């Protein structure tokens, strides 16, 4: 699998742009790492339950009640661009 690892394609899925030099460097490094990870193929995991996390808790929810939260001003304080109490982003709907 490392052979057909298309680093540029995967980076695009992650919304990261790579320069040609980075493509070469990351491609080689990640193939090397994936080659090491291949070790896992030696293991037979048929019939083993996966571990997603290690605490015996499921579906923890709080009571559905209104409680204080951030004000509009606080929520917007770290926004890169804002106007009229809203986040400003480039146009999304054509």
């Amino acid at each position, binding site marked *: 699998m490392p052979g057909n690892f298309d680093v540029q394609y995967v980076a695009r899925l992650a*919304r990261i742009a790579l320069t040609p030099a980075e493509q070469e460097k990351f491609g080689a490094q990640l193939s090397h790492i994936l080659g090491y990870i291949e070790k896992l193929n030696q293991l037979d*995991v048929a019939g*083993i339950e996966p571990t997603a996390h290690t605490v015996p808790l499921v579906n923890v929810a709080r009571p559905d009640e209104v409680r204080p939260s951030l004000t509009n001003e606080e929520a917007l*304080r770290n926004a890169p661009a804002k106007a009229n109490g809203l986040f400003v982003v480039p146009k999304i709907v054509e």
Partner: protein
Amino acid sequence: MKLAAMTAGRLKAMLARKEASCADIMRSVLDEIEKREPSVRAFITVRDPADLLREAEKVDQRVLRGQPVGPLAGLPVAVKDNLCTQGLRTTCASKMLADFVPPYDATVVQRVKEADGIILGKTNMDEFAMGSTTENSAMQTTRNPWNTDYVPGGTSGGSAAAVAAHETILALGSDTGGSIRQPASYCGVVGLKPTYGRVSRYGLIAYASSLDQVGALARNVEDAALLFSVLAGHDPKDSTSLDVASPEGLLSDPPARLRIGVPKEFFGPGLDAEVQEAVEKAMSALASHGAQLVRISLPHTEYAIPIYYIIACAEASSNLARYDGCKYGYRTKSEGNVIDMMTASRTEGFGEEVKRRIILGTYVLSSGYHDAYYNKAAKARTLIRRDYDEAYRDCDVIMHPVAPTPAFKIGEKTSDPLAMYLVDIYSVIANLTGSPAMSVPCGMSRGGLPIGVQITGPALSEPLLFRVAYQLEGLT
């Protein structure tokens, strides 16, 4: 001895006897910061000294008036810069969050404040806690206080270095694959990664959510116990938080017939001879005081690094998807549509290692590879957990080196990511199993660098680990 070099335990006793004030302690720590910080560079942010002294004096006044004060009264606490502090810049050592000022405190920060500890500042780390040396910080390079040509370890390298350099009394860190324990061992301090769920992660900037845990760094076992007792407890704001009784009896005598498991897989090729010698000496010391050493096997150990990097990177790629330049964090200055904006913001805002892990994580989760990598790793993680469950039939705790070598030179491993990942070979397992694990100093290399031993045990066994560590500390 300077106040800044003393343990929290001793300072508390001095405060109680009025031999020193909180303001004296704070002044001493600020002096050390001024002296050591130009070469160590442990802090990204130190709070305004005037504010810090004012807070210390306030605690002094409460003591004078005979009012009750908390267990950390007036003690300076350094906080890793991936823990949110209200009104205090929290960068995660990334350009992405260089200007981020959290509107709330992490639960652990709030608990420190409620215990009357004083938040001193924010410590350096690897960007988004990805690394093993703190060299991946976008802000600065932290140096090992024992020898400034060497790395302090990582990712909580700033916190470990600050404690070791007497630039703070106590520190908070986070540990996803060894990020508290490994820098603690490299800097000669005590580091605890608690059981997953025992300490709240609310307000910890997420890297790999099923592995991340907040913990304590301190000068000795007693201080680590003091800080851990303040941090531990249920938090309704963290859905993975365990509702269990407070840890007690952390410093009592260890059980009479303690069985220490010695896993053969951790003492094989790749382990530095001096580290092996120091760790074996520590175990022998415990054995000569009644503990029994039991040879055990953890057969899936060799798969820990592949499993860890698949799971950690997968979770990172998902967690870090939130940094899109819209609501907070860095936004590009370049023009374009919304996809261009997100791509440019992420490309300019993230450093190299973060990008590498996001790409790796995206790949192992992508259609067609999800089963071969992520699902397989999640299943193999179960096999690792079973190894440990099996081992705990024959022993009470397990001991082994924290890392295969003492600290290495700055720049030595930065060009080879895989070599860097292998530094974590002994430490990642406690995160895969969710177990508590401690790093305790157990010797020095001939080159003058500290060596640490890891003590780990079943979920929620912190009291036992502390008791063993406390005894060991008295013997070394």
